[in-house]
Every structure is written in structure tokens, then in C-alpha cells.
């Protein structure tokens, strides 16, 4: 295989490349990101730029250390996308070093140590998010009430710089818990679900995303639009998002029906936290999800179920990152066992036998 001349076909190639794939994913993320930047203001933009920038720098450094060609690998856009996805899951007013630390963890530890693009077992953005959440629980769970860019009570540009790069979170008054965090705390205090939900959950607001939450996770509407675009461009298939949402909503509906006082209903699960972002953009990460349709269905269903389990019974209000990482670990196993049926063979891999032949064989 050392020859430079390729002798095998095909001698044509579709207009497809890794950088195109990554660029389309970024394009799909753009509306939700812009929305996040708009409603959370300058600090969100600062955090976003710092996170993406440091991801790219970290990638370049690693490639140089590994002796790989820097420019072609950087141009594939995977590092920028990892940084982008990570930024979307961070609290919008988090200080700059959260973004930088996250990007370093994502690129250096979760991606390059495994061998670079395509080799990582776990979704780099989720590894970083989980590491940050465990290490810096305060910074990672302090959310702000939307302060739209250029509105009167929003921080100005300089103030934004101060929030991101200076003393950090300035005013306690603007901080708020996310819907899921609030519900978790209140239920922990034995407050009935209705009462707990009332101040923080409104269907329409949650759908549109004008609420406290991570930088790019809040607007279910815009994320679903982005996801639909990815489906349309055939970057992802429907299997993972649908399986994931169906399993999460199925479990949520079941338990809400059993214990309406303690278990939030399916809409809360769907429209709060990272459900939609996770289903369309994170669980569908090409590298870390199974490659066959059946495998993807199982993977998605597993993610959905784990999200529900973690949200309902574990210590964290949000379980998306954990759930996806746990299923990432199962991906090689799923790919090993759930293979497509080969043409001309049955599921066991034996050549097909038709009735007529069987009769004549007997």
C-alpha cells in the first residue's frame, strides 16, 4: 500500500469533504448561537470567541507537537466546531478561563491524546463540560436572566469585558438557576412540582428560549431548525435525535403519570436544559456515535433513558453530558454487534435460501 499511484476506482468523487461537513454543522448552529449572544449580551460573545479561539490554538499546538501538518488539519474545522459546541453549553457569563480550560480539556485530553480527529472515544465538548462541571460547580451553574444586547439593563461593551476577563460575576441580582436546577432544588425541599415550576417554566418562553440557561441551549426552536437543516443536508440521520427524544419523553410521560407531584412532564424535559441541542448536535457527533441505523437507534434510546435517569434520580439537575458520554463508551460495542444485514445473507450472515430451493434440496 505504499505506492503513490492509486490503481483502484472510483476516479470521481462527490463534492463532499470533512471541512464542508463541519462548516454545515456550524451553519446550523449559527441561529441558536446568535440568539444566545443577543439575549445574554457582550459577555456571551466574549466567552464564545475565547472558547473557539483557544480550541483552535490548542489544536494547532497539539498538531505541531505530534509532527502532523497543521494547516490541512486546522482547515477541517473540527477544532473550531468542538470549541463552538462547548461554548454553547457554558453559562453565558462564565469567566474567560472557564472557556480556555474547557477548550484545553476538549482538544488536548479528549481529542488529541486519543490520536486526533476521528480517534476519540468520547465527545470532546462533553468531556470538557463534565470536567468543568465537576471542578468548578459554582461557575458552571450560575446562569443569568436574559439581558438582551443593547437593552438598557444589559452590560455595555466595557462592562462585558469586565465580566468576562475581570472580577467575574458582578451582581448577584441578575443570577438565576436554570429551570431544571430550580426544579431539582425545589423538589429536594419537598415543594410540589406545580409550585416549583410555576415561576421558571413557561411553554412558550422555553420554546423560544428567552430564559436563563446555557449560552446556546435555551432556544429549542432555533436548535430544532438547525437540526432540521442538518437532516436536510444529510449530515445526520433522524435515528439518533428521534430515538433519544422518544425515549426521554416516553419515560418522562410514564413517570409524570405515576407521580405527577415529583416528576416533571415531558414538555419540561423537552424544552429545558440541553435536550434539543444534545439530541441534534451532540449525540449525533459523527465520530463518537454508532455508524449503523440500528446502532444509532439503540444509542439514541440509551442517551434519552440515561438523561431521564440522571435528571430524575441523580445528584445533577442536567444529565445530557453524562448520558452521552456513557453511551459514547458503548459505541464500539454497539458497532461490533449491530451490523447491517449483508446483501444476499440473513441476519446471522448465512447465505439466503429460498423456499423453492429448499424444496428441491429436500
Amino acid at each position: 500500500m505504499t505506492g503513490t499511484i492509486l490503481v483502484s476506482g472510483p476516479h470521481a468523487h462527490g463534492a463532499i469533504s470533512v471541512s464542508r461537513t463541519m462548516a454545515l454543522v456550524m451553519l446550523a448552529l449559527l441561529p441558536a448561537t446568535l440568539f444566545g449572544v443577543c439575549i445574554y449580551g457582550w459577555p456571551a460573545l466574549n466567552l464564545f470567541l475565547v472558547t473557539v479561539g483557544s480550541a483552535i490554538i490548542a489544536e494547532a499546538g497539539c498538531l505541531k507537537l505530534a509532527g502532523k501538518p497543521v494547516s490541512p488539519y486546522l482547515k477541517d474545522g473540527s477544532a473550531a466546531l468542538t470549541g463552538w459546541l462547548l461554548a454553547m453549553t457554558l453559562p453565558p457569563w462564565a469567566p474567560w478561563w472557564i472557556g480556555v480550560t474547557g477548550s484545553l480539556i476538549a482538544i488536548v485530553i479528549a481529542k488529541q491524546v486519543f490520536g486526533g480527529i476521528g480517534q476519540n472515544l468520547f465527545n470532546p465538548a462533553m468531556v470538557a463540560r463534565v470536567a468543568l462541571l465537576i471542578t468548578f460547580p459554582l461557575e458552571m451553574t450560575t446562569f443569568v436572566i436574559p439581558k438582551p444586547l443593547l437593552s438598557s439593563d444589559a452590560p455595555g461593551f466595557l462592562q462585558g469585558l469586565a465580566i468576562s476577563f475581570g472580577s467575574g460575576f458582578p451582581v448577584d441580582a441578575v443570577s438565576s438557576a436554570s429551570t431544571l436546577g430550580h426544579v431539582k432544588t425545589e423538589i429536594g425541599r419537598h415543594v410540589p412540582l406545580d409550585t416549583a415550576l410555576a415561576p421558571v417554566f413557561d411553554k412558550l418562553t422555553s420554546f423560544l428560549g428567552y430564559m436563563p440557561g446555557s449560552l446556546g441551549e435555551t432556544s429549542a426552536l432555533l436548535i430544532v431548525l438547525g437540526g432540521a437543516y442538518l437532516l436536510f443536508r444529510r449530515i445526520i440521520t433522524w435515528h439518533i435525535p428521534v430515538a433519544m427524544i422518544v425515549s426521554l419523553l416516553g419515560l418522562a410521560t410514564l413517570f409524570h403519570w405515576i407521580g405527577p407531584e415529583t416528576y416533571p412532564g415531558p414538555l419540561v424535559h423537552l424544552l429545558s436544559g440541553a435536550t434539543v441541542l444534545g439530541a441534534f448536535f451532540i449525540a449525533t457527533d459523527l465520530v463518537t456515535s454508532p455508524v449503523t441505523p440500528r446502532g444509532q437507534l439503540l444509542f439514541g434510546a440509551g442517551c434519552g433513558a440515561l438523561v431521564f435517569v440522571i435528571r430524575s434520580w441523580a445528584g445533577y439537575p442536567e444529565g445530557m453530558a453524562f448520558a452521552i458520554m456513557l453511551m459514547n463508551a458503548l459505541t464500539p460495542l454497539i458497532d461490533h454487534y449491530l451490523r447491517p444485514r449483508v446483501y444476499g445473507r440473513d441476519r446471522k450472515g448465512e447465505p439466503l435460501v429460498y423456499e423453492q430451493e429448499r424444496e428441491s434440496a429436500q
Partner: protein
Amino acid sequence: MKLFKISGGVHPDDCKALTAKSAIETLPLPALLHIPLQQHIGSPAAPVVRRGDQVLKGQLLAHSQGMISAPVHAPTSGRVMGVGNYPAHHASGLSVRTITLKPDGKDTWVSSEAIPCDPFKLDPEEIATRVAAAGIVGMGGATFPSAVKLNLRTRYTLKTLVINGAECEPYLTCDDRLMQEHTAEVIDGIRIMAHALGVEKIIIGIENNKPDAQLAMETEALNYPEVSIARLPTRYPMGSEKHLVQTLTGLETPARGLTADIGVVVHNVATALAVHDALRHGRPLLSRVVTVSGGAVREPKNLRVLIGTPVDDLLSYCGGFTSTPARLISGGPMMGQILPSTRVPVVKGSNGVLALTGKEMASDTPMPCIRCASCVRACPCGLVPLEMANFARAGDLEGSVGFGLMDCIACGSCAYVCPSNIPLVQYFNYAKGELTARQRTEHKQLETKRLAELRSDRIEKQKQAKREALAKRKQAAKAQQQEAAEAEA
């Protein structure tokens, strides 16, 4: 007509507009013809002419030998310049036994032995024999001797003859033009083959990107109720025999089996025309239609070319190159082979000569796999190409086989859609070749071991025989001594 879905496949730009409207032109007689003795799957033909012999058009140059083989005939009259080695129409660039013929320009036919008659009054065996004698092989590119396939009726219960007019490879339009320009002859050839096979039903599959051919064939088929035309969706690899049959019947050919296992035999459009010529006019296979196309060719054309014509002649007839082609290919861009030079001759299986520009090939440096599963979705055989390539690259051929290596038809759909430009088919070909080599070595070792064991057995037996003979002699001597002693006493 009800069609069934096949899984996978891709939609490459078909680029057929370059030649779809160009009527077939006959290439002028070339200065020299190089006719390889192996233009088919099976054993090479054995030459019956020698250097200096004067031959007539259609005269036998080499006869078939063995069960699976095909003869070759003189494409025109002239003098045999030699029987030697000449670069083959093959990516390897290796030489094969080839008869070189210098045309005398008269193009005189040999007097035909087989008297043309109504083929429908002939026995199926006789038709197969004549097809074999005419040197007809699968002209879609597979080059399997057609007569062998016509004889399948003896071993299988056949119901349907499927004619492959899908021509799913981009650029190629030779079958498209044949169906439009020789509609009646093609249909006649098809009906003769159906008669030979003893089947009642004939389906001609034509992709929807050839509406003119569909219409022409449909109009002609109106005269024959047993012939129907299927309008196939345009999707590569629709022309893969097994997938075409699945599209038409909904049945998958069992792994390692033939389409005959499900009662279907598939032949190509150009083969049908050759059968018509052989049976109606007693003419062996001497020429074929070749599409000369690609962005680097000045005037792309469809040409009727004598077997053995150097590819050079085809290209210069088409005005040569507009720019140095990035790749010269025999066949289509998806499964075609690289041609090492333009000296090589056209053979029975050459359906296209393509000179592609770098832009058309759109190949790029391979990057690591991102597991995007595009290849899994594109694979028409339900394989996991990315895993097969991973295992092949790591040298774990068994692992590669586990993900379906031996079921791969090398259609190239996976590599076509790979965003990382990984040469997947290259890996598979390497792995298949390596596996064959290993099996051969293993077989050789087993055989050596068996022979060695036989030898030691034989030697052991000889020793045993010697020992026994010695013992017998000793006994006999003892008995004699005893007798003598007794006698003395």
C-alpha cells in the same frame, strides 16, 4: 412495472451529455491491430495462426480451450505480423499473448461456415454453441463467456432473462446509442437468447437518464408481448447484476450464488447485438462500440471500433487531448481501470475510454476517517466499509472479512461519498489480493505437507515390505535347515 428498492447507492453526476447525442461513428481501419488472446474471464485462447499467415475477416485466430474460454477472430483481412507479448488492456501494464495483424485494407470476409437460418428453429444447445464459436463474452465489461451463461438452463430452473441496459456508470453512452440506433437487432438478439435459455419472460432495464433509448425500446417491444421495459431510477450501481435483479424482482441473490439461483439470467445490451450478428449473419464478434469521453478529450464520441485497435487511434480520431489528462481510464469512472498507456488495444470488454481532468476527478489528499457513516449508507451490499478499511489497514484481514470484505462488489460508492477522501476500494482490493495470496500459500503448504507425508508413508511401506521379505527369506532358510537336519537325522 413494479420496481423494488435497493439499499444504498449514490448519485454521481452522470456527465452523459458529452456523448449522449453523438451517433455511433465507425473508426477507419487502423494501421495495426493487436488482438490479445485473453479478453475474457477463463483460460486464454490458443493461437491457430502463425507469423506470416494471410487471414480473412472473421477467420479464427485462436480457439477457446477449456470449459470457460472464448475464441478470437480476425477483425479484418490482412497478414499476421506475429504472435507475441504486448501490453494488455489492464492497469498492471503487463504484457499478454497477443496476435498482431496488419490489415490489407480490403476487409475481405471469410466464407461463412454456419449457414444463417432462423435461430428460433435451432436447438438451445446449437444457439449456445454458435454463440461460443463467435467468441461472444459479456460486453458490459465483465467479459464472462456468454455461452456458459446461456447453458445455465441445464442446471437451474430459469424464468426470466433480464437485459442490463442500466448503464449506470457516468460518461458511458455506448449502450444508450446501441439501443437507439440498433433497436430491432438488439431486441432480436435478446429474443434469441431467451429462446436459448428457454425462458418466457424478458425484462429490459433502462435507467431514466436515457429516455430516448427507453422510448425506442418500448416502441419495438410492442411487437413482442414477452418483452417488457423497466424504467429504472437513475442511481449507481443500478447496473450491478445482483442489484438490477433485486430492483426488478425484489429478490436478493444468495451470497456466493448466481442470479440463476433465483431463476434469472442477466445479459448486456451489446451482448444481445453480438448474438444477433452471430446467429442471423454468422458473424463472430469483431468490433464493439466504445464511448470516448472525458473533459480532456477534444471531441467526445461513440465509436464502433475493431477489437485490437490501439486506444491511441480512438483518441486521435476524437481530436486528441485539450489538456494533459489527469487520469486515463478504461470503463467508467466508478469501476474503471487506469490505462497505463494509450498503446494498449481495445478488447471485447472495453466500453469506454475516458480522459479525465483533475477537476473532474475531484480527488484530494486522504484525511483520517471521521466515522460519518456515509459509506455505510452508500454501500449497496450492507457492509461497513469504514471498519473493513480499518481492519485491512491494520493487516487484520480476518477482521475485514468479518465486516463483509468478501461480499464487496467494489462498486466504489463508499469511496465516492467519503468526505475524508479515503481510497476505500484500494484497501479492499489490497485485502482481497492479500487474502488470495495467503490462501494460495496455505494451500501450497498443505499440499507440500501432504506430498511429504505420502512420501514418508511410501518409504515406510517399502521398508516394511523389505523387512517382511527378509523375514520370509530367513524363515524359509530356517525351514530348509530344519528339513535338512531332519533328513540327516
